[in-house]
């Protein structure tokens, strides 16, 4: 499932992200360290990204399917049904729809030391999992975003992901 990108449409100053998996001794120069606050975080699962799944087996054919529920919505208003009298539930389980690769690792934002409290920044690689949109049974995480510097940390402005949908 691809992440949602909103882009830097407001031409904000950019905050870089360094992740543990990509880190080596060349990742941070002396200048990087001197000119930036290094805002570090450990990455933990976000409860919003857990969803339920079923493992089902057809009584007649033995076919095995996994599905989000016995009634699944698919493209163009169609639905697929797995009725209980045709499909046996072998297992009910949870999946994590966020970024599993980075869980329980660390990452850091490099915030310029001349940042003014209240300044808005563009983050090209958001640390952790933030819901940008839910569609059908998918939960889509934000790849990038805008955040406000509060003097200690960056507060992600989740309203920016409202552009992923239209209402009216």
């Amino acid at each position, binding site marked *: 499932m691809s992440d949602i990108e909103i882009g830097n449409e407001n031409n904000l100053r950019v905050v870089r992200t360094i992740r543990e998996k990509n880190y080596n001794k060349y990742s941070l120069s002396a200048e990087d360290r001197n000119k930036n606050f290094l805002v570090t975080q450990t990455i933990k699962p976000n409860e919003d990204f857990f969803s339920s799944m079923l493992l089902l087996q057809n009584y007649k054919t033995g076919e095995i399917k996994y599905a989000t529920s016995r009634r699944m*919505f698919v*493209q163009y208003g169609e639905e697929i049904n797995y009725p209980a009298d045709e499909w046996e539930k072998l297992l009910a389980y949870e999946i994590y729809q966020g970024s599993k690769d980075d869980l329980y690792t660390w990452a850091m934002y490099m915030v310029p030391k001349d940042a003014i409290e209240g300044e808005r920044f563009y983050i090209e690689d958001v640390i952790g999992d933030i819901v940008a949109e839910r*569609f059908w049974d998918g939960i889509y995480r934000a790849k990038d975003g805008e955040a406000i510097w509060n003097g200690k940390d960056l507060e992600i402005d*989740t*309203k920016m*992901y*409202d552009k992923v949908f*239209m*209402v*009216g």
Partner: protein
Amino acid sequence: MLNIIDEKIFTNEGKYLKTIKCPKKISASDLEQKDEQTLYCNNCEKDIIDTQYISEKELVNILKKNKDICLKISRLNPMFRFV
């Protein structure tokens, strides 16, 4: 497929269906899931059709009857082409 051009929804044959524009610029947090096809807007206190669970035919029929009904359209929805 339905086309959205400058906030206006058209059928594939070019027939105008509706303008989709919220003057209150509501946020996702203003919407509550009421049932599979319906969201409730806390700002306007009215129902919104969630187009992710509706067919194109159903939607066109609804809009032919009532152009004022509110819709939520995800940009991930393959039923719509954003021009």
